[in-house]
């Protein structure tokens, strides 16, 4: 598969504030890529460089096969950007907004394109109202609809679900999935691990200007111990006894009134050993479960490690 986006050693600083310290990643065509990071991590700066809004200080970036610094106009033919804040024209109506973008993209029939998109995004009833009167969710829908005009092959979504209610967020997720199914490459940034987990084929974690991890959601999850086993005991006496039996061989990661979480390396032999130790000590947990790590665990583990190194 060819790469829709390829970035190598990208650097950017605003005066003394170093935002990107050498970022690398590639995104295959037709996949959904999520750039995960907290506020101020540099996510928007990467989007700004890839969408030709600003120039990088160093490094290379190609989008749709074209260098963003050398042929920005070629790049612009292939992309669209939906920024963090809906870039819609408040004074125009929804229809006029869509027709404006259609005209600027030189689509063959911008009037019909607008009609189709209004229908697709459930805005037909509000088509001739000024956008200033729209709710946040409606503005977002219009914003995305405007981004789809001219069928760009690569779509950038900067925190697309920020400030949306759960229903609107689900609509957005559905839109993103449909886009990818039809072959569009989607680059999205998010602070929400759940969102990256839900949508992305590939995830990269950006922290203090560098990518500290990348891979599929499952690959990332494998970075944190998968062998957490949680036991529930009948009474506290048993729980304390169990800690006594296990603490020399295993790490106790969490302990509550009647529950205990034990870390193993994840192999069946290791997990079995925990059970054997408990049986030998004649301790009978009333319940047990294996804890599947979430992306949150991954993110906090990765970012806390990096902070310690600094």
């Amino acid at each position, binding site marked *: 598969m060819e790469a829709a986006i390829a970035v190598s050693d990208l650097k950017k600083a605003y005066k003394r504030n170093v935002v990107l310290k050498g970022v690398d990643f590639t995104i295959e065509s037709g996949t959904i890529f999520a750039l995960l990071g907290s506020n101020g991590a540099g996510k928007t700066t990467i989007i700004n460089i890839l969408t030709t*809004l600003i120039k990088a200080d160093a490094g290379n970036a190609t989008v749709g096969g074209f260098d963003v610094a050398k042929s920005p106009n070629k790049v612009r033919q292939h992309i669209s950007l939906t920024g*963090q804040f809906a*870039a819609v024209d408040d004074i*125009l109506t929804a229809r006029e907004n869509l027709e*404006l973008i259609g005209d*600027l993209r030189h689509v063959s029939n911008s009037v019909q394109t607008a009609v189709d998109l209004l229908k697709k995004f459930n805005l037909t009833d509000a088509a001739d109202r000024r956008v200033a009167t729209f709710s946040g969710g409606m503005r977002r829908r219009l914003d995305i609809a405007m981004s789809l005009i001219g069928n760009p092959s690569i779509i950038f979504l900067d925190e697309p679900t920020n400030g949306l209610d759960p229903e609107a967020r689900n609509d957005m997720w559905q839109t993103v999935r449909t886009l990818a199914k039809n072959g569009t490459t989607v680059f999205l940034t998010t602070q929400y691990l759940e969102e990256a987990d839900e949508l992305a084929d590939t995830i990269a974690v950006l922290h203090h200007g560098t990518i500290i991890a990348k891979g599929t959601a499952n690959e990332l999850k494998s970075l944190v111990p998968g062998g957490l086993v949680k036991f529930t005991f009948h009474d506290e006496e048993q729980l304390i006894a169990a800690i006594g039996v296990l603490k020399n061989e295993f790490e106790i990661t969490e302990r509550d009134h009647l529950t205990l979480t034990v870390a193993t390396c994840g192999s069946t032999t290791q997990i079995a050993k925990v059970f054997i130790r408990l049986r030998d000590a004649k301790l009978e947990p009333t319940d047990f479960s294996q804890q599947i790590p979430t992306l949150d665990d991954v993110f906090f583990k990765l970012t806390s490690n990096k902070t310690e190194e600094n």
Partner: protein
Amino acid sequence: MRALKDTWTMAKRSLRHIVRSPDTLITVVLMPIALLLMFVYILGGALSHQTGSIKYVDFITPGIIVMTVISGIAYAAFRLNTDIQKGIINRFRTMPVAPSSILSGQALSSTLSNLFSSVLVLAVAFAIGFRSSAGLVEWLLFAALVTLLTLATTWMAIFFGLWAKSAEGAGSFSYILLLLIFISPSFVPTSSMTPVLRGFAENQPFTPIIETMRSLLTTGTTGNKAWLALVWSAGILVVMYALAIWQYKRKTFVTTI
């Protein structure tokens, strides 16, 4: 070709903005009309003997037209800056739109709307007794000069619109221009001013422009300052255009990291 089409698309958008904010139209058209009425009916009696053989309303109409243009272009700066603050300009900048059309669209809409305002103000002047001995050619030359002045000051507005940190501050440069109109032979001949002011008034750019307009409308001749008017207007246009493009290229339109 593409750039021209994009410019027209951008201008159409901007004209919709102008038409849909009636308050701007009121400020742009009513303020000069109010001044025109005030000067003619309140101060005109006292000032009319200053203007010799020219009727006072005929004397001040060109200056009022220039004032109409200046109060109109301030809104071009405001509109452009609002587009920057709201981020819509970044949507255009990531699209395959001819970059020049983003700014030229503003210049075109500003010129069209200012010519329209000027016609309205002229109509009021006619209603209160303004008469012109200009023929078709002189009227066309007058229209050409108004257009050139509008273009020149609109590019100035575009520069300030790009430069200003807030939409509210973007139009404030126009107050200086409005002040310059008062220190010129717009409302009284410079001969009635104190020597220092007179020296300034006789040599500032608005003076030959206003005098040429007056000459075209009242006597039907281009007058002796037509070249100077042309050089000033064209000079301001070239310099402000270059500054606006330079500012557009160096500006960072993004704020978020």
